[in-house]
């Protein structure tokens, strides 16, 4: 009996020591919360979360004013990461703010562009170049796909084009096929 007790006590000791050591070893510290949250947000700057950009949303989350599931471009994974970071419960994306879509970039139909500069003012990341009354072009690499330039365009010449995979950006797939494909995740493609 005594040995059993000893063994159990020993077990507890070792476990405790292990956990203690682990907590010291893996302790993290560093930049303030807002930056950490902002680092997770996709920086699309689309405002779908209800805030004028990612940083304000990050500030709102840190201040407890906003929930973690309001950023559609960040998608499910983004919510998970935020939940992880903040130690909160994961919750699905709030559909009020929109749904996750494949990444797109805006393309201006240069034949129809009237050079009104309204889209330049709308673009949060200065991805549109052009001067007044001249044709505008979108720099594809800089466009975050926020869609903010689409509604202001009076000539309706901006299209959102999904980004296609290239040989360079192609990714190896997860090796094991999931046993059950959730039917709900499939129609996401059509949404674009």
């Amino acid at each position: 009996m005594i040995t059993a007790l000893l063994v159990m006590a020993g077990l507890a000791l070792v476990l405790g020591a292990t956990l203690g050591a682990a907590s010291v070893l893996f302790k993290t510290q560093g930049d303030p919360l807002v930056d950490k949250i902002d680092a997770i947000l996709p920086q699309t700057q689309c405002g779908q979360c209800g805030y004028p950009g990612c940083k304000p949303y990050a500030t709102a989350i840190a201040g407890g004013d906003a929930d973690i599931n309001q950023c559609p471009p960040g998608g499910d994974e983004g919510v998970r990461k935020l939940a992880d970071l903040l130690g909160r419960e994961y919750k699905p994306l709030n559909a009020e703010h929109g749904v996750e879509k494949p990444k797109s970039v805006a393309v201006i139909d240069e034949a129809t562009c009237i050079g009104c500069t309204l889209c330049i003012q709308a673009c949060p990341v200065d991805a549109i170049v052009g001067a007044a009354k001249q044709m505008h072009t979108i720099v594809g690499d800089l466009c975050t796909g926020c869609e903010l330039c689409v509604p202001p365009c009076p000539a309706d010449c901006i299209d959102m084009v999904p980004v296609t995979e290239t040989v360079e950006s192609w990714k190896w797939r997860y090796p094991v096929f999931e046993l059950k494909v959730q039917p709900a995740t499939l129609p996401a493609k059509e949404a674009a």
Partner: protein
Amino acid sequence: MYNSPYLRQNTSVRRVMVTVLVAMLPAIAMQVWLFGIGLLLQIAIASATALACEAAMLSLRHRPVARALGDGSALVTAWLIAVCLPPLLPWWMIVIGTSFAIVIGKHLYGGLGQNPFNPAMLAYCVLIISFPALMSQWPGLQGSDAATQLDWVLGGERALDAVTGATPLDALRTGLLGNADVAAVMQSPAFGHLAGAGWEWVALAWGAGGLLLLALRIITWHIPVAFLGAMALVSGVAWLIDPSHYASPAFHLLAGGTMLGAFFIATDPVSGATTPRGKLIFAACIALIAWLIRAFGAYPDGIAFAVLLLNICVPLIDIKTQPPVFGHKVEPPDGGAR
């Protein structure tokens, strides 16, 4: 869809497990020869229980039953449990032990490859804590005929005192508690030349099976060498200090489960350390703790407890002993993983 490498070595988990079973055969034969055929019945009961539990758990967890049953891992667990237990244990204890090992020790942790504890040792500990008296009754050499043995295993009326005696380790501890010295205790009929009568042969048979595993590259040298080396070292030092209270290294190497533990238990890959240095530390610590329990603890043999204790430490040992990666060998020694 599958990708390179398109070539695969002809190997499988089943092959590994079957090899382990084969390597156990010499020792099983030796035990049967010495202690009677009760063991065979126990192995059969344990195997049947293990397979049944495994199948039940797999289907409960919605896993392909046939494929996983065929891997042979449940049989290895079952056989290890059976050979650890006294040969005349009633059948229900074997069933309890084996099902505990498979259901709780293995599948509740996620099944093959996920269990942090050695399932066989878990079963052994549960049984020895719950039924200490029954677990320390070993039959004497050729103490009974086959029919009686089978009857007992199947739960028949037992006249145990007539045929069972203490194991050498038990005898030693009882003797020492009674203030006899080691030399005197060793005179008793339970002892042979070095360890218990007959036990030397069982230990050597385990050693032979272990060498087979080594030769077939199923296990590496690290764990057996560190285990036996550490056991010899600590028992040797104690013995040199006070030979009348501490048994000789030869006794410790050949008594009880030392050989079985060194080659078959501590080498369980799933619950053991994986890095070369980690294996050395892991096995040496098991031997040390096992000896401490033997010498000072309340149980005659401590290998099972020692293994479980070290199982807990495996993640830490592994992290701390990551071998240096190609090209990074000049970094500080613990820079491997982190």
